[in-house]
């Protein structure tokens, strides 16, 4: 657990007045509020930090405790106990987290250890108004092979297991919304939503553009010149293709319906586009050189 410098978080010095704290908090909140920074994890994290800093520094009692123990916060409770025993005074006991409606991740472990998870009325100015819970953002890393077919997957978000269906053809970077899988509502409001962004890794020889797949296929010079057949790997199986005589380097061949599944359109597929790369023979024998010379002469070269 790391010590958090709440003054630094708000860009203040220790001598800052309550008014300075409020001003700094509002300015930073306007910049990092989740409503103005959708799907931005860095801002979300920053917003939590400034909220936490504001929670401590705008409450005189908490600020006093924070200032008093500073970096020795880990021993704060021990100090308090010792003081209590000496003076037989009743010290503060903080309420536990029961009955609170905030996600555990809202506060740092530093805050939890120092203030025991107590917090004020929630969103500033919200009073006892019910609000929908916080929206959560998560990213799900998948291999391109996994999104070729529709399948179910169990994922864990904030210690909760959720079974989701991943439709075939999901795109890299695409975001889907799962209603009601976000944070608990505030004051009994409805739950927030969960936004999952797909991060799709592709280590296959296929390049993907939406539903179309692209692949480069090497063919030898003889097949390119004379024509022939070749068995090639598509994304989900082998097919035999015909190569026309005198095929030029870089020629493209479209295999209809052999591409990637179209998102949420069952049974529909994009195309596979093959680009031919003609391989030149290497390490020619004497005889081969003679024959190539003969061919060159025939063309007047």
């Amino acid at each position, binding site marked *: 657990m790391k010590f958090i410098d709440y003054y630094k978080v708000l860009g203040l010095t220790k001598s800052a007045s309550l008014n300075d704290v409020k001003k700094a908090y*509002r300015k930073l*909140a*306007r910049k990092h*509020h989740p*409503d*103005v920074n*959708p*799907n931005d994890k860095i801002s979300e994290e920053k917003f939590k930090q400034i909220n936490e800093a504001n929670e401590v520094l705008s409450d005189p009692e908490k600020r006093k405790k924070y200032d008093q123990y500073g970096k020795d916060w880990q021993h704060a409770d021990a100090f308090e106990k010792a003081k209590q025993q000496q003076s037989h005074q009743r010290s503060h006991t903080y309420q536990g987290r029961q009955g609170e409606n905030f996600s555990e991740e809202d506060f740092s472990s530093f805050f939890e250890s120092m203030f025991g998870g107590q917090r004020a009325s929630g*969103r*500033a*100015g*919200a*009073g006892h*108004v*019910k*609000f*929908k819970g916080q929206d959560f953002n998560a990213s799900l890393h998948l291999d391109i092979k996994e999104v070729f077919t529709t399948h179910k997957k169990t994922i864990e978000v904030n210690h909760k297991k959720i079974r989701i269906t991943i439709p075939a053809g999901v*795109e*890299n*970077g*695409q975001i889907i919304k799962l209603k009601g899988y976000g944070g608990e509502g505030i004051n009994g409001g409805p739950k927030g939503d969960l936004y999952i962004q797909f991060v799709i890794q*592709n280590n296959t020889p296929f*390049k*993907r*553009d*939406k539903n179309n797949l*692209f692949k*480069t296929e090497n063919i030898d010079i003889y097949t390119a010149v004379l024509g022939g057949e070749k068995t090639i790997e598509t994304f989900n199986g082998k097919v035999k293709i015909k190569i026309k005589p005198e095929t030029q380097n870089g020629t493209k061949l479209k295999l209809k319906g052999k591409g990637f599944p179209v998102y949420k359109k069952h049974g529909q597929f994009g195309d596979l586009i093959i680009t031919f790369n003609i391989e030149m023979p290497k390490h020619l024998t004497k005889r081969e050189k003679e024959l190539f010379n003969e061919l060159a002469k025939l063309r007047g070269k």
Partner: protein
Amino acid sequence: MKKENLIDIDKLCTHYEVELSFFEQIEQIGLIEISTLTQHQYLHKKHIDNVEKVLRLYNDLKVNMEGIDVIFNLLDKITMLQEELIQLKNRLDIYENE
């Protein structure tokens, strides 16, 4: 319009502790649509997300209605640009490491 999807505006005023005029202002900037049925005003539940977002911007960040209008317009633009960026990044991948 199905009535079960409609919420009585009076109830929403009590729920969010705001005046009716607040909803009228949100309607003016085009973020919600208020329906009138049998002389009663209702809000379709699909607009609740926007109402709560407006309330948060208004209460938490002290942004006025004109500012909120600007924010919503810019957010729409950001969403559009982000989608375009993802598409372009995915396309770029085709030409990389060739």
